[in-house]
């Protein structure tokens, strides 16, 4: 065994925790460090800002509720981007798919809210999935059968989705006699229960879709790593030639992965439309679809990682608004800068520290092996 381990040319192994925990943390620390410098430049105290940020996200019950409410959206979009990643696809369209998913929710709730809750809510969940899936199915189909690159088409589909929503809300679904582009409010029985309805905590937008998101994370793990369909998707994502060799159709799996991705993104509509606003409004997705890319990247496309990354971004959203409110030189835009830096370091610059850290640990293990 020892002989086999130290065999020449075999890659030295890096401990798993380095990949899963250390590198994301280093990236995060680097992002916060640069943010600190920016805050210093605008003339505020970075340490105090960090404290405010943290307190604003987790410091009291209200804050936790809001943080988890944002987290819910990020889990949905993070999982959505991740399933596409597993198939080797870069789904930039979670934003548009979430919008169309929300449209599905809205239509179901607007036209069926005379039915009892236990009928209308499951139907709304299904329409969210179906509408979102449909919106991602088209780019998936175009990629699989026509070779139109999914990055381009999903970006386009974001714009189309936004335009469709505007048109519908201005011309068709607008509340009778209403002045602003939003639908009428749904009947109360179509609302998702808030967590504060059955737990002793202050009123926050946190609703049962958070629990739904956690259940979905479990289902995601099961599907991707424990079923043959997930296996096929991963094979296609890793090596299309091998997939063909093994009789796995790349195009079928590309379409399937995109549809699943769209369905997951569509669930943002459940949280936002059915859980919080209780009506269709414009732009309820608020960039969650885009941040989902960073969440999936940071979370290594694994549900546990995605949950942690979603929690981080949830905290940033919530703590960030607190920060903008508390400290006079830091405004809303400054918070976006900090978020942007984190996305930059954990997403685009994800590999900046990796080679150094990995070679450090490789050398360590090689020396240990040589010593043994």
């Amino acid at each position, binding site marked *: *065994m020892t002989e*086999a*381990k130290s*065999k*020449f*040319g*075999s*890659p030295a*192994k890096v401990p798993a925790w380095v990949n899963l925990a250390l590198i994301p943390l280093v990236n995060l620390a680097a992002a916060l460090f640069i943010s600190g410098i920016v805050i210093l430049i605008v003339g505020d105290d970075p340490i105090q800002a960090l404290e405010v940020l943290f307190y604003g996200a987790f410091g009291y019950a209200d804050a936790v509720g809001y943080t988890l409410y944002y987290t819910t959206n990020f889990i949905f979009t993070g999982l959505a981007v991740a399933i596409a990643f597993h198939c080797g696809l870069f789904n930039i369209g979670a934003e548009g798919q979430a919008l169309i998913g929300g449209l599905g929710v809205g239509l179901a709730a607007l036209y069926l809210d005379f039915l009892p809750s236990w009928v209308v809510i499951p139907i709304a969940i299904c329409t969210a999935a179906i509408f979102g899936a449909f919106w991602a199915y088209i780019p998936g189909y175009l990629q699989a059968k026509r070779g139109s690159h999914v990055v381009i088409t999903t970006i386009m589909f974001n714009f189309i989705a936004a335009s469709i929503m505007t048109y519908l809300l201005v011309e068709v679904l607008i509340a009778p006699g209403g002045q602003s582009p939003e639908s009428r409010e749904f009947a109360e029985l179509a609302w998702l229960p808030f967590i504060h309805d059955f737990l002793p905590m202050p009123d926050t937008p946190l609703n049962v879709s958070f629990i739904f998101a956690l259940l979905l994370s479990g289902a995601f793990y*099961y599907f991707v790593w*424990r*079923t*043959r369909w997930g*296996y*096929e998707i*991963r*094979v296609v994502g*890793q*090596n299309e*030639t*091998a997939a*063909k*060799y*093994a*009789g*796995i159709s790349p195009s079928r799996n590309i379409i399937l992965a995109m549809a699943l991705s769209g369905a997951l993104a569509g669930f943002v509509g459940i949280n936002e439309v059915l859980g919080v606003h209780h009506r269709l409004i414009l732009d309820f997705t608020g960039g969650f679809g885009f941040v989902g890319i960073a969440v999936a990247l940071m979370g290594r496309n694994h549900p546990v990682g995605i949950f942690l990354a979603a929690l981080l971004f949830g905290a940033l959203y919530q703590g960030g608004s607190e920060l903008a409110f508390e400290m006079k030189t830091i405004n809303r835009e400054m918070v976006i800068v900090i978020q942007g830096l984190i996305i930059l370091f954990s997403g685009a610059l994800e590999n900046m520290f990796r080679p150094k850290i990995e070679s450090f640990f490789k050398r360590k293990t090689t020396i240990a092996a040589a010593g043994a």
Partner: protein
Amino acid sequence: MSVDRGTIHGIIGENGAGKSTLMSIVYGFYQAEDGIILVDGNQCHIDNPQASIAAGIGMVHQHFMLVDTFTVLENVILGVEGGALLTEGLAKARKELLRLEKEYSLEIDVDAYVGDLPVGLRQRVEILKALYRGAEILILDEPTGVLTPQEADHLFRILNTLRDQGKTVVLITHKLREIMAITDNVSVMRRGEMVAHVATKDTSREQLAELMVGRTVLLQVEKEDATPGKTVMKIRDLSFIDGDGVPRLKKINLDIKAGEILGIAGVSGNGQSELLSVLGGIDPPSAGSVIYKDEDITNSRSFNARELRKIGLGHVPEDRHRSGLILSFSAKENTILGYHDSAVYNKGATLDQNAVLNICETYIEKFDVRPPDPNLNASGFSGGNQQKLVLAREMENDPDILLVGQPTRGVDIGAIEFIHKQLIEMRDAGKAILVVSVEIEEVMSLSDRIAVMFDGEIVGELDAKEATETRLGLMMAGVKETATSVNKEENKVVGS
């Protein structure tokens, strides 16, 4: 290690022994962590290919680094154009090339486009490129992998001329035959270490093989005569035109019989890969028919990779990195590639992790895969062990017919012996086996019958006992055999 001026020095070792790494360090692609390089007694600090060229070292890579749409002349001056305007550089290069050609008898048309040249000549362009840059030391990395035996002999003559002119040649290879044929001295590498330096005339193939592996090896495949049974797969007039409209297979006729190994010889790129991918159900044929167990399956629903596996076809692909394995998956997960929807591995919707693990462990034990770790990523195994994983998967699912592409490409000698034994055992168990290999020795020692492919056609088929290297070599170059053997082939087809 030291190399004498004016000699041909061979470096031999198993794949992954570190031959190419060593030469890449000398050529400046990689940095050595420790140690020094001396050229003509002067210590050189080589940290990029330019420094290496300046020190008089030239390298001919296994995969040529030429621009197909440029002429020979343009390729040669690539990187040393000498000035902003090409005209002057080209004229100078033309004169210099003519001199080099004469001096080393490297005849070549300098105005031909590289894309139009056969492989042997392209290699010559690479050599010229190195000489033009003033190389005194020429490193060739596995130069004969893509050549016919005749082309290889020609290359060796060129290398001899170079040596006689005082140049130094370093030849990296894993083929013992070449070392014995041409080198003056040989260094043997094993697992990143130099284990021996010997003069070629004082050594033997057996001794070198032993040095490479670290134990005695059997170079010849031991086998009984085949007892061919029923034809399992009949291929009639099979043609395949690829996506660019180029015909890759032209009216192929083959019979693959139970209890027999049919070898396909040929220089790589003459349609063997396409033959495997059509028979393996990856690409649909353009014309012709495939009859499997007396049933014409050409247009049936089962003629695709997934369904073929279910009716008893195993396929070991030519390139295990591109097709046979998912390198980022564990050995365990690779065990089920292609068989993942079999009832054995599934409990309802769930993949049965225990079943997968158990079967992977049996494969690992039976095929002696090292390290015996089902959770290790496929990329963490050596070439030979990766190949064993693929073979285990395709052989242990009890196929009636097994397609094997390059059974031992990039596999160390110890594993080659094992793989050959497994294939023979399978043949003796009455399975039909098709082996495609560019290693002519392998085809000759493994097969019972040999078909030779050239330019998408079967140029001839002969009994392995009648095959000689020259005869096969001529066929590989596209020379059809005399009428008698063609008649014999006709008779065979009629007779079957």
